[in-house]
């Protein structure tokens, strides 16, 4: 297994590079783009399985649960190699890889960790049931109701914006167990199997042609009490751990991928003699965004370095908010530019792409998923202004 080389960075890097080149077909992105979104998800499952064989699926997890205790520098090395190779992305595993351990390791019990984490390290897919139609930015307003019935909770309610839940085996779910308590005090955190009777999953057709998100309708869904994470009515605290779970390496990899895509896009334009290179406005805007991307890559590196040096959580959380705001705005600007560069040709409908190259209109439309989800950019501005700059709350 490649992970066994982790203590020798040079050999580790070389082994990953060679293995990816051998394992991933060079035309994987083109093939993926000719298929459906569901086929692309199958591709991700295959890729996750291949990574698992080399110990590279969850190297950042503790070894007790299927990981390899890989430190941050090692994680960045792996992410950097995946970005350089343009290897398949693992969008369907975002909750599995980050939120799940980020929750169960600090807040779950040993039985839950032993039951779910090793299986997840081999590829079970997890999703998150947090937002509701009436609880978006104001998450604590959630109303999905859980009533204790013997050794089960009985759940009735609705969840929305649950990403990749059509493909998931388990869901981390926030429910209201005490409707009379103050809004943050009556929430509990549960684990739900996605094949539970009474659960209906309805995909949400997105404006970018994809259907990553679904709505969940829960009617008398029974969840065993042993699936409670943390104490009853202490779910808000557990959810804070979930939401704070470390995604810095994810942001790092995404930015590194974008860096290679920018260079590839420019190189191809030169090779093709693309007209936009002669257009002062477009060419200069490309350089502006290339430099903004460089700045954001440096900010992410600084954040990870602070993590490594054990910087206080409050300061790294602020840096994360600033990076989220800057980075997602930049993704939108790049999509916007590429859409204009591509002109009428770029208006050709393309509902899915493999994030291996820029597809202007798709990237532009999809970018709103970034500026709206994960705490809208307006929430980020509040956080930065109030907690970062010390401006008074409104």
């Amino acid at each position, binding site marked *: 297994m490649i992970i066994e080389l982790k203590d020798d960075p040079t050999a580790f890097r070389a082994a990953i590079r060679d293995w990816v080149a051998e394992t991933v077909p060079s035309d994987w992105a083109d093939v993926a783009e000719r298929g459906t979104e569901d086929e692309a998800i199958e591709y991700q499952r295959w890729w996750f399985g291949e990574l698992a064989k080399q110990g590279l699926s969850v190297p950042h997890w503790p070894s007790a649960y299927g990981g390899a205790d890989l430190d941050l520098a090692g994680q960045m090395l792996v992410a950097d190699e995946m970005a350089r190779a343009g290897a398949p992305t693992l969008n369907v595993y975002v909750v599995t890889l980050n939120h799940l351990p980020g929750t169960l390791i600090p807040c779950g019990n040993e039985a839950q960790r032993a039951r779910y984490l090793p299986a997840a390290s081999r590829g079970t897919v997890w999703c998150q049931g947090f937002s509701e139609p009436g609880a978006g930015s104001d998450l604590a307003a959630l109303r999905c109701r859980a009533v204790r019935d013997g050794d089960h909770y009985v759940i009735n309610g609705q969840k929305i914006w649950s990403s990749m839940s059509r493909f998931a085996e388990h869901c981390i779910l926030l429910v209201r167990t005490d409707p009379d308590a103050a809004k943050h005090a009556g929430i509990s955190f549960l684990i739900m199997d996605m094949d539970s009777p009474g659960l209906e999953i309805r995909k949400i057709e997105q404006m970018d042609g994809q259907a990553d998100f679904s709505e969940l309708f829960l009617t008398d869904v029974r969840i065993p009490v042993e699936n409670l994470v943390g104490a009853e009515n202490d779910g808000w605290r557990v959810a804070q751990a979930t939401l704070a779970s470390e995604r810095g390496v994810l942001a790092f990899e995404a930015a590194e991928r974008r*860096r290679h895509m*920018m*260079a590839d896009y*420019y*190189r191809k334009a*030169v090779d093709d003699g693309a007209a936009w290179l002669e257009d*002062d406005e477009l*060419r*200069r805007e*490309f*350089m*502006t965004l*290339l*430099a*903004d991307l*460089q*700045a*954001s*890559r*440096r*900010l992410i*590196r*600084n954040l990870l370095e602070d993590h490594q040096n054990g910087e206080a959580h409050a300061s790294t959380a602020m840096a994360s908010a*600033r990076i989220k*705001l*800057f980075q997602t705005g930049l993704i939108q600007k790049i999509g916007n530019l590429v859409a204009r560069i591509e002109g009428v040709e770029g208006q050709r409908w393309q509902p899915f792409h493999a994030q291996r190259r820029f597809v202007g209109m798709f990237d532009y439309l999809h970018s709103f998923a970034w500026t709206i989800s994960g705490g809208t950019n*307006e929430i*980020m*501005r*509040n956080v*930065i*202004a*109030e907690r*970062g*700059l*010390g*401006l*008074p*709350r*409104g």
Partner: protein
Amino acid sequence: MDVELAEVQDSIAAVLAEECQSLAVHGFIDGRDPLDQRLLRLAAELGWLAIAIPEDQGGLGLGAAGLAMLHFELGRAAAPGQLLETSIALEVMARSEAARDERIARLLADVLAGKTTLAIAAEPARAAGDRLVLLGSRDAAAALVAGDNDDLVLVDLSSAGAESIAVWDETRSLVAIDPARAPALAVLAGARPLFEALFAIALAADSAGAARGTLDRTVAYMKEREQFGRPIGSFQALKHRAADHLVAAIAAEQLVWQAVDNAARADRGSVVWAAMAKANGSDAAVRIAGDCVQLHGGVGFTREYDPQLFLKRVRLNETLLAPNGELRDRAERAFGEALRSGQDVLEIAS
């Protein structure tokens, strides 16, 4: 940034917090306080002018990183004077063969001692004709201007009859000379790429610092100023703009450091990142400084308050060296050449 550099930057910031407060800067622009002269003396005493120069030539040996942090702090304080042009010219001259000439060495010593200042071409790429605009004061001893190809020429200003140009930014000065009246003292062969890179980095750093300076003061004002019975900083329509400006200012600062990392290599990456740091940084600073005037409301429109100082300063920065569109074109050409030759200028040293 390493610890030693951070300590030097803190010490510069501490001196400026003491010596270059808002009141002093206003005293200077109103002609009541020769703050520029005090800062020049301090800069000479504390080694700021020689911050980049190698230690064996009497400097602090901090290179482009030293220049960047010095000018970030000077920009943040809207510090008046000729420190930007003088420090760049000194560094370029110190690295040149010309520094071995006895007359030039004497001039450098006088400048390092704070006895006189140097000027530089405001737009080195612009053809001079019979009128050349310099960034610098009327009493500058000499100026670095463009020569043939990649050369620079150090010209004597003692009988050039430099004529002051009254500019909006009252914290710095421009002069015009007739090049025919400014005889060459020395030719600095091949020095222009280094000169333009350091000029760009200093402008980028000054702009990033100014953006941060005006933003910090604006945020402080937004906490104090009340309307409708509450601090205006509590209004989302205003605080969201402050958050955006903070993020843009921090990104601009990162580009300064990217340019610094590349400066020592004097390769295409150095051209790309110096040009982009100045282009993106001064653009961002102009947007931020303009909105800081707006966020102040009526007092932002007065001469008495600080936002105007920073806005005018960064608008001058924006025009210096070369227009930002042209800098982006230069960066794009260098980026393309680097890609063709297999050099990856996007790599970030760990």
